[in-house]
Each structure stands twice: as C-alpha cells, then as structure tokens.
C-alpha cells in the first residue's frame, strides 16, 4: 500500500476519533427519547409478540401429568400413573382455582375440554385413592382418547405455534402435521384479505380524488391555493372521531345523503349506507384523502412549469405533454402518498367499528373483540403480529423508496 494511502487512512481515523465526543454528545441528546420509546413503545409491542406464542397454562396446572406423559408412546391409552398424576394436578388446580384457566386453554384445541376439565376437577375432589384411570373413563370416555392426550402433551412446551397458526387459518393435527382449517372456523384469512382489499380501495380512491387537487394546488394563484390548502388541512387537523361521527350522521337512512339523493330523484327508496362496506370505504377515503394529497403536492411543486411549456412548444399535444413529461415526474409523490395511506388504512379500527357492518370489520376490530369480549389474549396478540408484520413490510418499502425524513406535517 502506498504511503499516501496509509496517510489518508490515518487522517480519516484521527478525524473519526476527534469527532467521537461530538457524536456522543449528539446521541446523548436523543437518548432520553430513545430510552423512553424502548420502555413505553417497543417493550409493549415485544410483550405482544411474546403473548402470541406464550403457552403457560398447561405447564403451570399439569406439571405432574406432563412428567408422567414423558414415557407415553403416543398411540395407546395412557396407563394408571398418568391418570393418578392428572388427579393430583387437578386437586391442586381446584384449590388454586386454575382448572378453568386450563380448561379454557385446552378448549381452543379440543372442543368440549372446558367442561371435561371442570367436571374432572370436581370429581377428583371427592376421590381419595385410586385407581383413577377407571374413574376418569367412567366420567367421560374421551379421557381415553389418545388424540386428546397428544394435544395435552404437545402443550407442555413453553411456546406454542397455536395462536399464530389460528390467525392464519391453520391448525396442528394431533399427529403434529399442519393443515388448513375447514368450514366456518376459517375466518381470519378472509378478514386479512378484506383488510387489504379495503385499504387498497381507499388508497385508489384517495389517489383518483387527490391527484387533481394536488395539481390544481400547484397552478392556482397564491390566494386561491391558500384557501384550497386550508380546505385540505382542516379535515386532517380535525379529530378522527369527529369526522367519523359526521359520517355516521350523514349515512343514516334518514340522513342528509339519502335526503339529497331522494330530492334529486336519483333513487326512489332510501339506501342502506350506514353499516355497509360502501359507507366504510367512503368515510375512510374522506379521512385519508389529505394524507395522499400532501406528498403528491410537495413533489409536484418542485416540477418546473417551464417543462410542460417546452414540451408543448416542441409540438407535443396537451395530453401527451402531461402524461409523458409531467406525470412520470410526480411518481415519487404518488408512491409516498399511496404507501402512507395504505399503511394507515390497514390499522383502521374506529371507523369500521362505527360505520361498517359485521361483515366489514377489519383485523383491528377482531383484535379488540378477542381482548375485550373473548378474553383470548393469545389469539388477539397473534392477529396483532400478523397485522404488524404486514404493516412493517410496507413501512420498510416506504423507507426504501421514500425515506423517514420525508414525512412532513402539512
């Protein structure tokens, strides 16, 4: 290596060393916020991920049974020691009132397990000595089913794929193979597809409605552009709930939109708009429109107006001057605005909950239902993971194509 190169490297290293205190000072200013976000934002999301794969119930309630099952061959009906261990575990569970917890968890994978566990817990309370196997089989012949035992044994692990599989309409057969859920249990892929479809539709509509607005914003005289900008920013600045409330009122069957449609004789019967997918998409399009307009506008503003004139003076007809010279240059703004709206639309909860019907609820609404009504936290967390993965994938695409520093507010 030439001496000059060595010198250059040494100088470079020396500069880096000299800048170290400054780098550290800069970082230390941001450190409080970084630490805060790690504790109050990243940690809750990580906790959610853990909840989606956590499997504490069986291990906590049936430690002896799981121990006894270790030598079980997996096909025959287990022997007396397994039932004796189950009886001992259920006695403790009855005292600690954890039997219901176990029953609920196993019921996800074996239907009817909740009542079976509770009945067995009540039974063992009255039993002092064995043999237990006969008693369990008399209580319910399903206690002799090797499939049930296989599932109990499988849940002895601290992590489970059960919730994540369920969130993707998959299930694990007793023999461990993964298969597609059939029939009316398979709802989640449908919900995910619906979420993506609604978000896509909203993105498309905001683009169609927003692109001309952004364009006119760039060519309008200053005063008019100012008023137009106000009309774009004011809804953005108004509470989401207020905007949703407005749509709930507008879309009522005796509401303003139906009144107008009737008065114009566009329809003879009042349309059902509230609690429909159409209503949801209209309201979401209204709410997301500014998010699509603003990035497109900020790109359009940087395109010199002289280019269109040059194209025209060189003989291009108006339409090809627009589509071949102007429109391609607006593409970065279109990508930024559409990705932003798509990302935000994926996570909608309030608007579908208030404006949509039961068939229009998106992933977020199902997460909320599983937390609040069904108390199935694992499944709620797993659906959250699916939503988060899809969102982050698109966010990464956004960072790649646009960059985090391009996010502006108004």
């Amino acid at each position: 290596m030439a001496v000059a190169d060595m010198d250059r490297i040494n100088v470079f290293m020396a500069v880096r060393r000299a800048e170290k205190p400054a780098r550290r000072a800069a970082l230390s200013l941001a450190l409080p916020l970084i630490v805060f976000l790690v504790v109050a934002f990243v940690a809750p999301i990580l906790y959610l991920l853990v909840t989606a794969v956590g499997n504490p119930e069986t291990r906590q309630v049936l430690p002896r049974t799981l121990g006894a099952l270790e030598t079980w061959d997996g096909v025959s009906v287990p022997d007396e020691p397994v039932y004796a261990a189950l009886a001992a575990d259920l006695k403790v569970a009855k005292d600690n009132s954890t039997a219901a917890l176990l029953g609920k968890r196993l019921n996800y994978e074996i239907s009817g397990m909740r009542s079976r566990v509770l009945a067995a817990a009540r039974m063992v309370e009255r039993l002092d000595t064995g043999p237990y196997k006969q008693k369990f089989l008399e209580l319910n012949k399903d206690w002799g089913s090797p499939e049930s035992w296989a599932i109990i044994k499988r849940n002895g692990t601290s992590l489970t794929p059960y919730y994540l599989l369920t969130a993707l309409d998959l299930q694990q057969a007793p023999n461990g193979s993964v298969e597609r859920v059939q029939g009316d249990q398979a709802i989640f892929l449908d919900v995910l597809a619906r979420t993506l479809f609604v978000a896509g539709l909203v993105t498309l509509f905001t683009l169609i409605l927003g692109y001309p607005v952004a364009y006119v914003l760039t060519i309008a005289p200053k005063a008019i552009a100012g008023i137009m900008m106000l009309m774009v920013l004011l809804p953005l600045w108004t509470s989401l709930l207020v905007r949703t409330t407005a749509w709930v009122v507008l879309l009522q069957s005796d509401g303003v939109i139906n009144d107008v449609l009737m008065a114009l004789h566009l329809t003879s019967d009042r349309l059902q708009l509230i609690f429909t997918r159409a209503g949801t998409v209209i309201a979401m399009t209204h709410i997301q429109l500014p998010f699509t307009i603003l990035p497109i506008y900020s790109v359009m503003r940087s395109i010199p107006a002289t280019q269109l004139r040059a194209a025209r003076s060189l003989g291009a007809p108006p339409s090809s001057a627009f589509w071949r010279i102007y429109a391609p240059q607006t593409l970065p703004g279109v990508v930024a605005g559409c990705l932003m709206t798509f990302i935000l639309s994926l996570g909608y909860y309030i608007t579908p909950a208030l404006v949509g019907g039961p068939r229009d609820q998106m992933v977020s609404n199902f997460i909320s239902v599983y937390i609040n009504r069904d108390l199935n936290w694992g499944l709620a967390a797993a659906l959250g993971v699916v939503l988060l993965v899809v969102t982050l994938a698109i966010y990464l695409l956004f960072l790649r194509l646009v960059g985090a520093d391009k996010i502006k507010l108004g």
Partner: protein
Amino acid sequence: MWLPSYATPSERLMRTLVMAFVIAVLLFLVAPLFIIVPLSFSKDPFFTLPVKEYSLRWYADFFGNARWMNAIFNSAVAAVMTTILATTLGTLAALGISRPNFPARRLIMALLISPMIVPIVIVAVGSYLFFGQFGLTNTRTGLVLAHTALATPFVVITVTATLSTYDTNLTRAALSLGASPSSAFFRVTLPNIMPGVISGAIFAFATSFDEVVVALFMTAAEQRTLPVQMFSGIRDQINPTIMAAATLLLALSIVLFAMLALLTPRRVK
C-alpha cells in the same frame, strides 16, 4: 382558467372539467365536518336538515352532565401531561438528530417515527397487556405514557424541520462570547426554534386529546376521556348531545389549527 394563451379548445374544456372535479372534492373534504354544527343546535333529536327549530338544549345537556364534564377534565389533564413530556423529550432528540455528526441517523429516525406507523390497535393492546403487569392499566399514568409515545414523532418532525433552517452559527457565536451552554441554549437557540417547538406541542396536545383506541383499552370509567365517551355514545345510541360534543371538538381543532397557521406563516406556499 390559469391556462397559457395557446391552449386548445379541448384543453380548455378539459381544464374546466378538472376544476369542477377539484371543487367537488374540496367540498367532499370540508362539508361533512360542518354538517354536525347545525344538527347540534337543533331542537329535535333527529339528524335531518334543514333544522326546523334551533335550541341550545343539547349543549345544556352536555355541560350539565357530570359524565361529560368528567371526561373533558380527564382528557385535558392527560393531554397537558402528554404535551409536557412529549415536547421535552422530542425537542431534545431533535436537537441531537440535527447535529451533523449524529450516528446512525436513518435507523434512529425510523425508530422515532415508528409510533406514527404502527397500527394504533397494536399499541393499545401491547400497552394494555404490558402495562397491566405493573398495575398501570386503568390509571392516568399508563394512558399518559402510551399517549406520549404516540405524540413524540410529531414533536421530533416539527422541531427537526425548524432546526434545518436555524443557523447554528448563532449558538456558536453565543458560546464564543462566553455564554454557558445552558444559557446559550435557553437565550439563543430556544427562542429561535420556538415556533417549531410550539407547533410540536400543539400536535402533541391534539394527538392525546383526540386519541380513542389506546384510551379505550387503558381507561376505566373513572379516567374515561372525551373521545371514549363519544365513541361509546355513538356505539350504544347516537344522540344529539354527541353532536354538541363533536361541534365543540371541531371548534377546538379550528382554534388549534389557527394557532398553528399563525406560528408558521410560510406553511401555505
């Protein structure tokens, strides 16, 4: 309309159509917001226009109801606490990020902005499960912590934007003239970036004051905020008192928006 003189007739027609379309879209943007205002002053409990008789009964109902008043109080307290926390943390971070030798800027910026991107339900459920471990669900502290995380990106963005036009030589001049780092900051830097800081604070306040989903998960009846009260109201039985609440929220939004516009006169170009 705003066309060069050489425009063809078809171009003129096209332009007229585009203009009509844009006016329609702008009306679509703004009209729904103001539809709730006359309804909130209606004497009848229906949502039909035109309003036959005006009255203030729904406002009387709103201000006379302990539940609504309690909700306003809760929202205001949470929003003020969120604003103070988020503005302090966000401004400090923006000062760091704006320095030329900030390490791993793209990565850290992506982290700081991510609360804007992550679906709100995930933040809500994660906070509900995680803060529950420390007994912070159904407390104001838990709500403020979650809201602060959501609000900081707005402060970081506005203050960073202001700092990008700030001449750092001013701070250096103050330091070289013998000012201590803290007095250089408070007497030179901060007054210069104040518009950005206040814009960020307004955004933070609005974020917390309008937020529904996290508040739904993190509050019980006692800490219930105004948006949660509205949400449950619409869900159960929509009534005109909610219109009064929505109108007041709209008025607050307009006031905050006007403040913001005054702070940054160059916002509309």
